[in-house]
């Protein structure tokens, strides 16, 4: 299936099924409502085939270029049918399974994620391990019946909804840094796992703490080899900074247009509006070229840190503009639309923090793209 054909037929299908796809809730909805909506949309688009395009046949896909996935996410986001952040988790976790899980495991599990039967989470950060990922200490030791995992993760998005977790564990000595890390695919209903959601500033319980108390994980759930966890993580992170960002650009475009629709006369400054539109244009053009590199089989790497910096800058600029243009709504409005602007403004503050902070991205750019050598 070619992109143009996919685009045309998908657009037609989305128009025809607009009523089926529409959320039952109004406005932003609660996280529970968003998750239910996501599962519904994934199921409908999977059954109609759209969700399967761009994924390999061995994991239940229909093949074709990854550009098809990028367009599907863009189209769903642009129509406000899914929340882009939770939708794009698939783009981060499915490629990792395809690249590193045993083929039978990937063939069983990935279709469940695509169809919306399951939600997965990503267990990377720990209380003592934020930007310095290689210092993680959640321990996995070899037992008779599998890995035995003990430790804690934090900022684990949507863990309370997740059936599985891609988990980074320490299997080497404590000072083995990035060499002693192993990635595991863990069932979240395993005995010994406790999930505690964290209420964030923007009012959603999107992030969680996850506690592991002697949790047994079968050896065949190892992703890659023992000690290859860093490779798994480094392979995953560019996905976090590619297709999901393309979806986010569509979302920012929709919200900026809605801001133009809603902002009262004289509330917005022309130079500010012009600059944000230019930022968004440049970010989207950058993200587009990344999508085309991915589709041509190029391996994505540290250059995606530029995409992430551009996203964070653009997202904050869009919502800074909203905070000016819709000042009363953001500050004192209590209706649904105001609640949504406020929530999204607050969430945009995290854009320079999550998924590798703005500082970490600049460190990567300095070290890997500018070849400035070690910072010590």
């Amino acid at each position, binding site marked *: 299936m070619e992109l143009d054909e996919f685009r045309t037929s998908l657009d037609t299908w989305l128009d025809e099924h607009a009523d089926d796809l529409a959320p039952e809730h109004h406005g932003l909805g609660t996280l529970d409502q968003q998750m239910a909506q996501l599962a519904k949309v994934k199921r409908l688009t999977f059954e109609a085939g759209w969700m399967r395009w761009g994924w390999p046949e061995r994991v239940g896909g229909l093949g074709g270029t990854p550009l098809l996935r990028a367009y599907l996410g863009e189209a769903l986001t642009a129509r406000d049918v899914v929340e882009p952040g939770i939708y794009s988790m698939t783009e981060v976790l499915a490629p990792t399974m395809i690249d590193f899980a045993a083929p039978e495991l990937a063939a069983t599990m990935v279709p469940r994620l695509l169809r919306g039967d399951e939600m997965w989470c990503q267990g990377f950060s720990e209380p003592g391990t934020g930007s310095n990922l290689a210092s993680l200490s959640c321990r996995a030791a070899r037992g008779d019946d599998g890995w035995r995992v003990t430790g804690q993760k934090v900022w684990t998005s949507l863990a309370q909804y997740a059936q599985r977790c891609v988990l980074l564990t320490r299997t080497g000595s404590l000072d083995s840094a990035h060499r002693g890390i192993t990635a595991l695919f863990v069932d979240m209903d395993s005995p010994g796992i406790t999930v505690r959601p964290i209420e964030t500033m923007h009012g959603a319980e999107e992030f969680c703490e996850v506690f592991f108390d002697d949790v047994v994980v079968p050896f065949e759930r190892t992703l890659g080899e023992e000690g290859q966890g860093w490779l798994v993580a480094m392979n995953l992170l560019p996905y976090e900074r590619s297709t999901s960002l*393309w979806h986010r650009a569509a979302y920012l475009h929709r919200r*900026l*247009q809605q801001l133009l629709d809603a902002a009262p006369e004289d509330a917005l400054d022309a*130079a500010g509006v*012009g600059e944000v539109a230019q930022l968004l244009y440049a970010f*989207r053009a950058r993200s587009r070229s990344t999508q085309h590199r991915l589709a041509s089989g190029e391996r994505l790497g540290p250059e995606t840190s530029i995409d992430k910096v551009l996203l964070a800058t653009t997202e904050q600029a869009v919502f800074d503009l909203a905070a000016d243009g819709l000042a009363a709504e953001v500050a004192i409005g209590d209706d649904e639309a105001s609640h949504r602007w406020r929530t999204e403004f607050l969430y945009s503050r995290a854009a320079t923090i999550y998924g590798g902070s703005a500082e970490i991205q600049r460190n990567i*750019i*300095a070290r890997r793209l500018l070849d400035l050598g*070690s910072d010590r």
Partner: protein
Amino acid sequence: MIEDAALELFERSIGHAVESHTGEALDAALDEVGWLDALEADQRTAVSVLFERQGAANATSSALGWVLARSLGLDSRGGVVLPALGRWDPPGDLDGTRLRVHGLGRGRWVVASTGEKDLAFDVSTAALDLRPVRGVDPWLGLVEVTGEVAGAETQPVMGWDAAVAVGRLAVGHELVGGSRTMLTLAREHALERIQFGRPIATFQAVRHRLAETLVAIEAAQAALDGAWLDRSPQAAAMAKAVAGRSARTAARHCQQVLAGIGFTTEHPLHRYVRRVLVLDQLLGSSNVLTKQLGTELLRTRQLPPLLPL
């Protein structure tokens, strides 16, 4: 389209031309390598390759006037006179039968708008006042053209906005080329300069300035690439504005990293910093284009269409 093998050869010969020549000598060298034929055959490649490299080498040529002439359907080698600094309306102003000119650069043609259509006046034999500009960047070899002409031969032209759009992309590429050289110079200095017993490239404050510069450059490059696909004057104006702003960011960060040596004329940086100031103004500055775009968006309340995947 220029295909891969030919492209490599083309890039090499353009690279050699801009590194060995500047000004009239570069015009001659471009003639020799057939750049105008390339412009005929593949506008995007010819423009992006030449202007990025010209910017990187801090060289100058008459090619911008040729690009506009070609886009307007005029004999490209004659070139058109460019709008005055910071402007993008045609540099000619008709007063009855007299043509008043205020523009930049030597050129055979001066375009003026009559309201319903645009006319190109052949001023090759006219006695216009040519002021060689020193200004902030004497190496640019800019000429300010003023004066009045009567009875020049005219030719109707179409597509002034489209010609300005291609010109903006050309200047955008030149700004990106210059920014990349500034970053290279600052990077080399950061790795060589030792303070407190270690290269200043090890300090995060320095690393982040250089990282920020690369982000700015890549944003401009992406916007330019996007605008070539879009082919709309609005996209070209956005890309030019992003490129101008990025180049000023690059100049600021790179000058700070190069510190004392970058403030002397013994180091090449100052020539790039100077050029950014002029190029940002050519065919509309980033500030003015940004304000203009914002005003338009607030009037129509409609964002530019999305660049498709």
